[in-house]
């Protein structure tokens, strides 16, 4: 099978092109370093099945950071028939160097000048035949985002698939040699690219003047965060309640009559176990989708790099940098890609310190638990404020952790980052991402939630000669056993079981509560509201926020750090911190008479 590799500097639209031609859904974002691992897809090209590989962006072929070595490793170990080099056309004056480096390897290549829409807007024009001749490779202008020229580019690629290409061993040899291509690049750009005299991107400059304002910038950041958050909440809550209501109705009117003839234990397992558990979790799908749609827009806007600019001085005091802050923000979606995103950092210590704090950022799975708990224990007016304060606690624990560990993981990593222009995702990009998150949720659901819910059901229903979820069941015994540790933080036996399963994945927590109480939707909330007061609930939320996010995060921590010791450190630190914070909160609140 023929193989095409996509090469280019970070943030040039490789993944966008990859998605467009293969129909895959690689993650796209206006941030250098969104892709940190390879992704392959197959497509039919000129009658043959061809494998196309999306790679992380690289600044040059001699890179040292972990995402760049992924590319180098790939080239040194795999046969590549054609390199499709994707550049941001407007920035060809610096990016052409990479094309020249790839060409020097002897790989057959074609060059795509992407973002033709932006080049056109700023009045940059190319003499393509001239460039083609000087580079001795086909050069085409495309817009991967809007689709212009992509079909032609593929056709051109198909024509060059049969050319002789160097073996991985040759490339390995080549990569050891170094040569200077700077003068060559300058000559080509000078003779084939026309830049207008005035190059300012007026829109971007104007927005930046406000958003990067010396003293308005940070307040604006927090205000924007709060508004986005309010938006998700106001729009998502009615949707969530609607689904919960519909699921309730479905149970009462369809499932219960249907399971009437089945044995009691079976309908109990099906309804109180699986249906309640999954239904309670499924009600959060709309909010989660909404959340990710907003995240997509933020990620694609280019604002993340601006956030890095605004907070870098503060982050430096904690031994981190602006990129670490962006990873935390990404961690609000899911900690796993955020952990992998730290591959752009070269210094191991900086990477480890950043990876140590990322699991403390309040991910969307934890958000589900908090949405549920705040709706149960607080008024609709208080709930958003409580939620927002949990985000602030998340930041606080991150800062605390960084300050404590910065001595141990000190580094002198340079901080240099591109600031891309503001961009806005197309409806297609937004839709793709939303759909991807639903799918991700459903896979996790089938993997963890069903098994988790079944286990919780078993724990709360065996031995079967005592009442379900009473102190005599296995769950009750575990609860009693943990009581000495968890009583001082106000977490009772039932919540303790939910916490244990939350260790595997936070999505299980709410499902587990539904199973433990044998109720769903409004009824569940009402019963919980009578059993818990807000101080206990808050303490439970603090614990849930800080202790280990989920098994996938732990596995990623181990893989990315390649150190079991580091993984254990992260695990124990967050568990200890969770307990201490909950303890201080619970005891203080009680002492104050709440």
């Amino acid at each position: 099978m023929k193989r095409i590799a996509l090469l280019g500097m970070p943030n040039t639209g490789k993944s966008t092109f990859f998605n467009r031609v293969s129909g895959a859904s690689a993650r796209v974002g206006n941030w250098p370093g969104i892709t940190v691992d390879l992704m392959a897809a197959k497509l039919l090209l000129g009658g043959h099945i061809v494998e196309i590989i999306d790679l992380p962006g690289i600044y040059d072929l001699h890179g040292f950071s972990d995402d760049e070595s992924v590319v180098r490793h790939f080239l040194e170990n795999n046969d590549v028939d054609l390199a499709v080099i994707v550049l941001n056309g407007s920035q060809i004056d610096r990016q052409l160097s990479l094309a020249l480096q790839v060409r020097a390897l002897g790989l057959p290549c074609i060059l795509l000048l992407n973002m033709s829409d932006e080049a056109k807007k700023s009045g940059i024009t190319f003499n393509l035949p001239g460039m083609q001749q000087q580079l001795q490779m086909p050069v085409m202008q495309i817009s991967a985002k809007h689709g212009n020229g992509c079909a032609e580019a593929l056709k051109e690629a198909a024509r060059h698939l049969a050319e002789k290409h160097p073996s991985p061993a040759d490339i390995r040899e080549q990569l050891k040699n170094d040569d200077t291509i700077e003068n060559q690049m300058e000559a080509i750009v000078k003779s084939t690219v026309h830049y207008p005299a005035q190059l300012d991107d007026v829109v971007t400059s104007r927005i930046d003047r406000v958003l990067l304002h010396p003293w308005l910038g940070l307040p604006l950041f927090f205000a924007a965060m709060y508004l986005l958050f309010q938006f998700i909440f106001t729009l998502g809550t009615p949707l969530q309640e609607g689904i919960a209501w519909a699921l309730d109705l479905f149970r009462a009117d369809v499932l219960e009559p249907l399971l009437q003839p089945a044995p009691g234990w079976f309908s109990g397992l099906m309804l109180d176990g699986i249906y309640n558990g999954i239904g309670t979790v499924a009600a959060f799908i709309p909010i989660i989708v909404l959340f990710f749609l907003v995240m997509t827009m933020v990620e694609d806007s280019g604002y993340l790099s601006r956030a890095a600019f605004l907070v870098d001085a503060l982050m430096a005091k904690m031994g981190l940098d602006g990129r670490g802050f962006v990873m935390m923000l990404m961690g609000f979606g899911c900690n796993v890609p955020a952990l992998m995103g730290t591959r752009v950092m070269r210094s191991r210590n900086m990477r480890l310190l950043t990876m140590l704090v990322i699991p403390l950022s309040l991910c969307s799975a934890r958000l589900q638990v908090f949405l549920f708990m705040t709706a149960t224990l607080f008024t609709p007016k208080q709930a958003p404020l409580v939620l927002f304060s949990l985000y602030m606690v998340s930041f606080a624990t991150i800062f605390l952790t960084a300050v404590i560990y910065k001595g141990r993981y000190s580094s002198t990593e340079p901080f240099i980052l591109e600031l891309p222009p503001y961009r806005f995702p197309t409806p297609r990009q937004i839709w793709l991402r939303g759909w991807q998150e639903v799918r991700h949720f459903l896979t996790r659901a089938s993997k963890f939630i069903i098994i988790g819910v079944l286990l919780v059901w078993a724990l709360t229903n065996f031995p079967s000669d005592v009442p379900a979820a009473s102190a005599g069941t296995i769950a009750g015994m575990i609860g009693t056993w943990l009581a000495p540790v968890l009583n001082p933080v106000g977490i009772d036996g039932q919540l303790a079981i939910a916490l244990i399963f939350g260790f595997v994945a936070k999505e299980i927590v709410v499902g587990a509560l539904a199973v433990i109480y044998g109720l769903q939707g409004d009824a569940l909330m009402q019963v919980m509201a009578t059993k818990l007061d807000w101080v206990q609930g808050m303490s439970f939320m603090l614990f849930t926020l800080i202790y280990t996010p989920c098994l996938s995060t732990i596995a990623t921590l181990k893989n990315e750090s390649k150190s079991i010791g580091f993984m254990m450190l992260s695990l124990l630190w967050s568990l200890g911190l969770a307990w201490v914070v909950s303890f201080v909160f619970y005891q203080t609140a009680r002492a104050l008479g709440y």
Partner: protein
Amino acid sequence: MSDLSQLQPGAYAVICGIDADESLFQRLAALGFRIGKKIEVIRRASFNGPLHVRIGTTDIILRITEARRIQISQQ
């Protein structure tokens, strides 16, 4: 001759020297920091934060520590 960290927002200069180890040098070059290039400081972050600079069509932010490594001449 001075270095980039001394350049005020709105001012232009030409890069005339880069003092960095191999890997940092490569990264800077890939981002457009090359001798003879015109560079403009757009703004500085508060609390001695990073500089926002522009070289050609590329906007870059970098810390003052890194800016000190870049020698410039202003006419």
